[in-house]
């Protein structure tokens, strides 16, 4: 990789790469995204290496480990280009057959291709699979094409092309105009117009400014940002260079949570590559512009995703948010004007520069432009990452892309926006998803986690879960959030322990009103969403817990009863060994019994039993 001295040098190099690239050459891409990695991507890739060598295909077939290929539910995924044959659930044992059947003989391994859960129809090509067919990837576009550790791959896909345009054809103001015209809004939660944020920062009088990439991705159930940082790190860097040029910053920071070690590694590597190639550093491509990026790691605190807390954390303090205004764009890192944007926001920027604002505004709804990446998880057949135009309905996402609810269960709710979001019931399935529509039904877009719940989820438990989460993560600085969460947590515990009272519900609503209006930061202000949305749409479940002391979904432990069916029990003693309190007794090879006095209702016996002999009611 040369050090690029000018844009012409870069263009020339890109031409060489293109000339060398043979589109017909077979390429094997093994997915090592967040979903596939724990299922053994590395082992599968290694098996390919060995199998290819054995068949003498080294050099003839290119083997790459890629970022997230989207359909995580059926990992480990392997994509064979250029034919775009998409294999799923690939294990080490399948690899020799794939090499023999597909790469040597040109056939298809039938048992590894996608089968639609409803129609039983089979599809071998990526483009035919309904999950992929209905998407419109911009941010995720390169994830199943490139090797995230290869700058050449990124350049071949047109990477760092936006630099020619911004440095040599546009003033910083024109860059801001373009981004503003594109309608791009922040993908980290609140949806603030990105161009307007940049303008405020550019117009601040201070000479030293910063850009920050928020890669804290604290919302449980969300892994879009992780997939982008791991799968296409240069896109984030390129976006930040554009932003830095627009506002006049010389230093950037990427703040990544420490639970994402691979993202840190990939970003650090990409920054080094970008420095060596001359995209970061002094006088970038002889533009006279200087800019560099540093990676900071979080230390395990959800609240550090909030922009003012994140800034405090980079400065070396505890992650306590501060009241806004002043906004970071006016007074941010070390008190200086700072643009802070989310990973996905940054990753959108290069393409907007390349394709223009009008191209972007043509996608999406009136007030929400472009696409949004969602992590579709929970009770849905095709868990994974999807990218759809704003305005796609929940039903399209959950049923057309997501393949519906597994095991013929009934849909109950979809939770968006993480702990700051709400639970949306079935009656809103046809809601077109954008920033405003989600807010209207009591939830938020948030960063893009979409958790589907079926009849086996208890909505009281879900709300209690989020309150417990936020209670643990609240920094404790302001009283409404700290005390409000403590009281809400207490009330939820009363309810699920069978001590709920009718007056608990109005009290919760009152607490929420105070927290929503008086908390310092978004954590406390929006902590009320999971409570209010479940109270509004699932009040009957609260009433069942409070009045009948029953959990209809059979989730809330203290309200359950476990028994063993003497007819089905084989006396294998698996449950006896697992029971932490020794509540199960009986002879070997004979039916067991649970002592209800001792039982703590942990459900371990229920899960251990291979014969469905443990009953729960």
């Amino acid at each position, binding site marked *: 990789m040369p050090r690029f001295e000018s844009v012409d040098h870069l263009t020339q190099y890109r031409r060489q790469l293109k000339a060398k690239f043979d589109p017909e050459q077979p390429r094997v891409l093994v997915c090592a995204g*967040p*979903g596939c*990695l*724990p*299922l053994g991507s590395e082992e599968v890739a290694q098996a390919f290496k060995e199998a290819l060598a054995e068949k003498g295909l080294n050099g003839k077939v290119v083997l790459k480990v890629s970022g997230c290929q989207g359909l*995580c*539910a059926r*990992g480990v995924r392997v994509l064979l280009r250029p034919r775009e044959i998409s294999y799923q659930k690939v294990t080490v044992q399948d690899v020799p057959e794939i090499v023999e059947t597909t790469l040597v003989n040109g056939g298809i391994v039938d048992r590894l291709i996608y089968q639609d859960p409803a129609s039983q129809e089979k599809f071998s090509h990526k483009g035919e699979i309904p999950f992929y067919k209905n998407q419109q990837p911009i941010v995720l576009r390169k994830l199943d094409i490139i090797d995230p550790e290869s700058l050449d791959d990124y350049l071949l896909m047109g990477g760092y092309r936006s630099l020619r345009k911004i440095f040599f054809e546009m003033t910083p103001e024109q860059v801001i105009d373009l981004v503003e015209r594109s309608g791009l809004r922040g993908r980290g939660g609140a949806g603030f117009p990105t161009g307007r944020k940049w303008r405020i920062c550019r117009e601040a009088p201070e000479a030293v400014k910063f850009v920050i990439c928020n890669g804290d*991705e*604290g*919302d*449980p*159930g*969300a*892994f879009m940002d*992780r997939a982008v940082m791991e799968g296409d790190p240069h896109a984030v860097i390129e976006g930040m260079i554009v932003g830095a040029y627009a506002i006049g910053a010389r230093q950037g920071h990427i703040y990544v949570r*420490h*639970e*994402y*070690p691979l993202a840190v590694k990939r970003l650090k590597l990409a920054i080094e590559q970008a420095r060596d190639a001359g995209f970061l550093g002094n006088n970038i491509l002889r533009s006279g512009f200087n800019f560099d990026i540093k990676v*900071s*790691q*979080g*230390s*395990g*605190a*959800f609240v550090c995703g909030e922009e003012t807390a994140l800034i405090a*954390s*980079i*400065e*070396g*303090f*505890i*992650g306590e948010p501060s009241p806004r205004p002043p906004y970071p764009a006016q007074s941010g890192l070390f008190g200086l004007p700072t643009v802070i944007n989310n990973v996905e926001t940054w990753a959108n920027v290069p393409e907007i520069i390349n394709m223009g604002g009008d191209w972007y505004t043509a996608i999406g709804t009136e007030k929400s432009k472009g696409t949004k990446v969602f*992590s579709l*998880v*929970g*009770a849905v057949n095709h*868990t*994974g990452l999807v990218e759809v135009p704003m305005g796609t309905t929940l039903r399209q996402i959950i049923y057309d892309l997501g393949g519906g609810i597994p095991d013929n269960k009934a849909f109950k709710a979809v*939770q968006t926006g*993480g702990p700051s979001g709400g639970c949306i019931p079935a009656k809103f399935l046809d809601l077109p998803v954008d920033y405003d529509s989600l807010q209207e039904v009591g939830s938020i877009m948030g960063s893009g986690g979409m*958790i589907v*719940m079926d009849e086996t*989820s208890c909505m009281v438990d*879900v709300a209690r*879960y*989020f309150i417990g*989460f936020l209670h643990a*993560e609240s*920094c404790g600085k302001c009283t409404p959030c700290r005390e409000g969460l403590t009281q809400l947590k207490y009330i939820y515990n009363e309810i699920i322990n069978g001590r709920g009272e009718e007056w608990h519900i109005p009290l919760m609503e009152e607490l929420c009103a105070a927290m929503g209006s008086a908390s310092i930061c978004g954590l406390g202000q929006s902590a009320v969403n999971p409570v209010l949305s479940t109270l509004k749409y699932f009040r009957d479940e609260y009433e069942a817990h409070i009045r009948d002391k029953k959990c209809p979904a059979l989730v809330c432990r203290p309200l359950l009863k476990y028994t063993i069916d003497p007819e089905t029990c084989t006396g294998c003693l*698996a449950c006896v060994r*697992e029971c*932490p309190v020794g509540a199960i007794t009986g002879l070997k090879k004979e039916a067991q019994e649970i002592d209800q006095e001792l039982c703590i209702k*942990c*459900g*371990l016996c229920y*899960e*251990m039993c*291979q014969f469905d002999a443990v009953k729960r009611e």
Partner: protein
Amino acid sequence: MDEARLESILSRYEGEPYDLIPILQDIQDNYGFLPKEEVKAVARRINVPITQVYSVATFYKMFSLIPKGKHQLKVCLGTTCHLKGGQRLVDSLSSRLGVEVGYTSKDGQFSLETVGCLGSCAQAPVMMVDDKYHARVTVDKVPKILKQYQT
């Protein structure tokens, strides 16, 4: 205190107050916890009050003031893992190892922790042992996983 060991960490930084968190992260990774003498030395060196060092060390979840076990068990209690029974996984590990969440087993082998979300929600419930992910971990898989690490 092993001065050379600490020095090898401190020498990577400029020694400014904003280096505090990365330095503590390096010590945590290298030592497995934040030893008292080292913490004091860091405070002196980068000119930060010892109270601020302790406020940082106790605010963030990744820091520990007591030594951790040989293997770190991190059970995900993110939303998806919660819905798919992550808590039962915690209970099972806790009772098998005789250790509460946030503590280390008596033999010093395992520390048990819960975390927000590991970002592999599609394979819930998920747990991590040291740097390795374990996918779709149901309670009946726990003994086999622990065995890989038990010596």
